[in-house]
């Protein structure tokens, strides 16, 4: 009974009430994933589980036996930040920084969703491959609140990285 976080194995908690978010922040000591609401309303706790972004506050750690979790710390480091992490710095895609790890985890998985052809509410033709318009980015990032209001800069950062990727 274990789950893998950023390549390291952790035994599941004894207390079944422990959310995946609290497990990551406390037992794994990775406080990059943030608790903004604990109710799946703000997206600050977004992590990538088996390749898909989820709100880690809305799921219990014990439900993730054998899962592979990537947190913000697993995407890049101070010495080797990921392209999105660098772009968020360049474009000032944050202010207080509290929603930022969730934004970046969310954007990382979101770009994969586009590549996989998943449509969104902003997709005109859901049978065609979606293109990454600004409206697509805004729609797909609307689960991650930023009270500082850095949205235009967040979109600019994602746009730059996606542009490089394609």
């Amino acid at each position: 009974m274990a789950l893998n976080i950023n390549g390291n194995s952790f035994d599941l908690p004894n207390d079944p009430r422990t959310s995946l978010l609290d497990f990551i922040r406390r037992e794994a000591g990775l406080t990059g994933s943030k608790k903004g609401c604990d109710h799946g309303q703000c997206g600050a706790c977004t992590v990538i589980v088996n390749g898909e972004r989820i709100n880690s506050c809305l799921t219990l750690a014990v439900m993730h036996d054998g899962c592979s979790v990537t947190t913000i710390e697993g995407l890049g480091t101070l010495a080797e930040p990921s392209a999105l992490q660098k772009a968020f710095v360049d474009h000032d895609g944050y202010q207080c920084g509290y929603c930022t790890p969730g934004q970046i985890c969310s954007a990382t998985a979101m770009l994969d969703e586009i590549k996989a052809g998943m449509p969104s509410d902003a997709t005109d033709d859901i049978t065609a491959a979606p293109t990454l318009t600004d409206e697509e980015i805004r729609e797909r990032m609307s689960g991650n609140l930023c009270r500082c209001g850095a949205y235009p800069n967040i979109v600019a950062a994602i746009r730059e990285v996606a542009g490089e990727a394609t």
Partner: protein
Amino acid sequence: MSAHLIQDEPDTRNVLDRTTQGIIGKPLSRPDGLLKVTGTATYASEYDIEGCLEGVLVTAPFAKGEVTSIDDSSVTGMPGVVAVLNDKRMTPRAIQGTAGEAPHTGLCKVDYWGQPIALVVAETFEQARDAAKHLEIEFNSEDAIFDPAACTPEPDDDPTRQGDLGKAMSDAEHSVDLKFTTESHASAAMEPHAAIAQWDGDTLTVHASLQMLNYNISELADAMKLDESKVRLVARYVGGGFGSKLGVSQDIVAASVATMQLGRPVRVVMSRQQVFQNVMRRSETSQRLRLAVDHHGKLTAFGHEALVSNLPEEDFAEPVLQSSHFLYAGKNRLLQSETARIHRMTAGSVRAPGEAVGMPVLEAAMGELAEKAGIDPVQLRLDNIPTKHPATGKPFGSHKLAECLQRGAEAFGWDGSDRTPRQRREGEWWIGTGMASAARVHNVGEAKARVTLHDDGTAKVETDMTDIGTGTYTILGQIAGEMLGLSQSDVLTELGDTRFPRGPGSGGSWGAASAGSAVFVACEALREEIAQKIGQPVDALTFKDGLVSWDDGSVILADIANGENFTKEGHFEPGDIAEDYTASGFGAFFAEVAVNRWTGETRVRRMTGAFGFGRVLNAKTARSQCLGGMVWCIGSALTESLMFDPTDGHLVNPDLAEYHVPVNRDVPDLDVLLVEERDAVASPIQAKGIGELGMCGGAGAIANAIYNACGARLYVFPMTPDKVLAAMPVD
């Protein structure tokens, strides 16, 4: 070692324009940026402290009355539970900004629904949370007034009355007499209020999410009956504040009581619901605007009256009229604000207290007046800019309203020649435009900062100032680097610790000008000392890239140090100048909206903001502050509203699912123009604040655009689809 500057006169030296490093104002990225994007910046609750207990607040399920008993035994047998605390030192209300004391203590008397009444402490968070839900309490509840219109308000003790407003209104060529309401707002900073308190038997150390440590240390010391020298507060990273973390909140005192009583570190983090229910709300307002112009389009009457509310025994009243006092001319004036005492949670500062709700209403009324008078709304504003404060006669510092209006209009492509509504339709959407002025008073406060020049040629800045996302780490480093001739990477800035020299903290947009001036003063003293060592007058020296040079010589900064560290503490204090001038930031907003003819939904399609706020210290972070303000304009115009149950006073929407802050898709690309200026009155670095100006009036531009698009004239903010639909003329 200490250099003291009391600013009594305008500082027109513009020292930062004569330095040569060339980094001041530049759009440099934040030095703390990589920490934030890699998740390694540490916020209040995230310190790994051995043996830390977890506390969860229990809150009142009634609005007014008394807790008569708390049955500790109902939970003390539960796994992991250590203690139930209800201590007379604990604070029932979040403390107002700059209070510097704890005026309310003791949790048994309840004045609003959701007020903390106890703290349950356990070994783990899950245990504490469970026990908090099971704590049995008994209470007596009383009837209470929740509706500000249902009580007799306290009158304004200092209203402005000039001339005869009533006569001016009846004599006028064109006039409007309008009543508006605005709903209550929440700061809703992304990081919930949180504290870890540690008592070592002598000193209380608290990591907390706070904006103003210099005041907060006095507040916590007062609550705990400790000497300030026995308290240390640390807030290196703060996940947003927007006014909600100006004063010490209930979690901080509760954690402090718990650690002193239990002898172990204690963490208390408010749930999102608790943050909504018991930190701070912006008061709802009712406002009346009476405006009149003569046949030249000159304002002859200016009446702005407001009704706001707060709990009994709170000094704060939303200063709705703050910028109305000086924004427009008009000889016949009446400005007064009344306060109703009701039992909703404490009303206090939420980003741009006053202007955030006063300016949109004033600007919506100006829009209607322009229409009545048949004047381009931009021209109406341009024609009514006063040359001095209309009531006090005090001159302005710098004043860029006209230029912001003109440049904003040009950038936006504003055409004010025909403002007839309902002229443009795209499918099921009405399209329209609107504009508004921006104004926000400039504040500045006494501040200290220490700057040390190390023998390796690098420098360090230390102050208890906070960076709540505003960019303090960035701009203080830029000021020091510019003054000492160092690159950004050669200056380390350390903030958010009461062991550093103290200043006013973040709030009222005063942090940059206050703390920045303290850093400036320290650097001036360092430059003077270096000049003395070299034996040249300081004005003859050029500081650039770690080199000090003059006419016929130069020396490496590190060599001057010669194994020594030079340290200066800068102490800045605003002097008489604060009394002699009217200082304010100004700006203009232009918005284009689409309004759905079937649903009444409003989408902001584009928005331009032009702002003049003194010297721009960093064009990137300043722009971000403006962007943030404009996003708040969208929220307060269209969606944000705290809703209270009229029968029991509880907050109906205490979370981020039901209190609607703008999401990414609500915000288009926003165009920001930074209108450069130097304000010699504002501060010795010629800078004013920019944290709030960006939201002071923009909701009025959106309101005016909604009318221009679809013909729905609304007098209530936010303008939700139901209200727009009801006010929209039938096709």
